[in-house]
């Protein structure tokens, strides 16, 4: 079929157009590559930063965990030390000051009763209190050393026998006095009664309705 084709496009123009087209393609490809590269770099930078942050956080966690373990160990050691100190304190510390005991007993003396002798001695706490109540050790541990108590021996004179009994009752009703026991009551001269009592100062015994000992250190 006749189509009257006379192509006047020089080969170099075609090459020129092809080169220009290839340049555009290369430019587009280069742009796409640059954009991809920039995106990859940004992503890598973010990932690197995130990884560094994760590593730092993990390191902090490890160091914190070590510190926590150290603090825990230190606290446990201090606790054991304090336990030993408390135990030691309980074995050697007196349940009350002697002056407080004396002041309280003087305060409890009824009218017409006087004391002429008092002896305070240290002894171990007994499991059974004077009122017949079984008191457990304060720590609840069987191998704990028993705390010390004070045994107080009193001797005095009273105008009446009833006053001696009242004095005995007052002691029994007052904390930490337990185990009040009348040892002897006898006639002395001029109608007076000579008596002797023993009482134990045991702060671990907690009878109902007990009053607290008067302490100079606690107003």
């Amino acid at each position, binding site marked *: *079929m*006749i189509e*009257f084709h*006379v192509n006047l496009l020089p080969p170099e*123009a075609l090459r020129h157009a092809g080169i220009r087209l290839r340049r555009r393609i290369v430019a587009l490809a280069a742009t796409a590559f640059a954009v991809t590269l920039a995106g990859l770099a940004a992503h890598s930078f973010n990932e690197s930063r995130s990884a560094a942050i994760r590593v730092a956080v993990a390191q902090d966690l490890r160091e914190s965990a070590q510190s926590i373990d150290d603090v825990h160990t230190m606290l446990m050691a201090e606790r054991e030390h304090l336990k030993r100190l408390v135990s030691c304190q309980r074995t050697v510390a007196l349940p009350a000051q002697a002056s407080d005991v004396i002041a309280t007993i003087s305060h409890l003396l009824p009218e017409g009763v006087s004391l002429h002798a008092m002896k305070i001695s240290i002894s171990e706490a007994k499991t059974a209190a004077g009122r017949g109540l079984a008191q457990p050790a304060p720590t609840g541990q069987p191998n704990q050393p028993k705390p010390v108590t004070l045994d107080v021996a009193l001797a005095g004179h009273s105008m009446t026998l009833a006053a001696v009994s009242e004095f005995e009752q007052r002691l029994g009703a007052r904390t930490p006095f337990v185990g009040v026991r009348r040892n002897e009551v006898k006639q002395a001269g001029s109608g007076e009664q000579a008596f002797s009592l023993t009482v134990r100062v045991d702060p671990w015994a907690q009878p109902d309705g007990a009053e607290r000992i008067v302490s100079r250190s606690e107003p």
Partner: protein
Amino acid sequence: MFKALAPRTDIAIDFGTDRTRLVQLSQDGLDASIDAAAEFDGSPFAVSGSEITIEPGFVQALRRALKSSGFAGRRCALTIPCSSLLMDTAELPSLAKDELLQGAIWEAVDRFGLDRTALHLGTLPLGGGSRSGGPTEYLLVGIRRQIAMALTDCVARVGLEPSRIEAASLAALRTAWRGMKMATAGGCFAVLHLEDGKAGLSIMSGSGLAFHRTFDWKPASSGESQADWIPVDGEDPGTARVFRWYGLAEETLQCFRHIDRKLGCAWPSQLVLTGPAATDPALTTALSSVCSVHALAVGLAPGVLQGVLDPMAAPCTWSAALGSALAGQSSGSGRRAA
């Protein structure tokens, strides 16, 4: 339904002398439809036909036209006006293809007065060639390389890749030939392509293109593009237009007589008018009466649907662009018309 999937031809860009037209066809079976068309004022050849000036505004206008009118693809075919081409006929001996081209180049260098490095030449045999081994007449179509490179650069700047550059008159001849070859049934007909100031006359015989000549149809001293404004001494101003067309008709008549003497009993039965300046009814009247031939303006080729082309647009205005686009089509309509 599947029209969007139909293959599209190359984008045909017709650089006229004052306007630029773009067309793209899609082939749907045996038919082709105009899928995209655009035109705008401006041309690289607006200042001078032999020089090319590509303004940045022209490139922007071309880019806008491509974007706004639904063109697809990157390949394009360019047509340029006859005034920007160097065309002549020459008899060349029967040679091998490469030797023939070299001989044609030497002949063109002598005739056009250009250095062979500044010229790109194409040839087209006239009269179906010689079967006896004697000399054959060839149509020599030359283009200055500077113009070809500038046009290539122009379309490359808007992202297109040119596949061919051809003369607007030959592209319009393709449109006319597709419409006429069935009607004439192997007879002789002529195609007159009219541009602003330049005309290209082609005479088709049964064996193909028998004659082609370009000539000026407007006096160089006129300075006006409207033929009916040209004053003629001793004539009434109202008849000046008809007289002006008679000058063109006389030139056409001389060509007809030449081909009639050369081929013998080959007077064209029809004269088909193409080109932007072929819309004047007075032109067909003048040509018909002077040349004793039925003159008519070209229509759309058979099998080419109007598509998006403005129904009021004259097909002869778009004939070069349509012919260029039809060259990229797979000749479905051509087979049907044959």
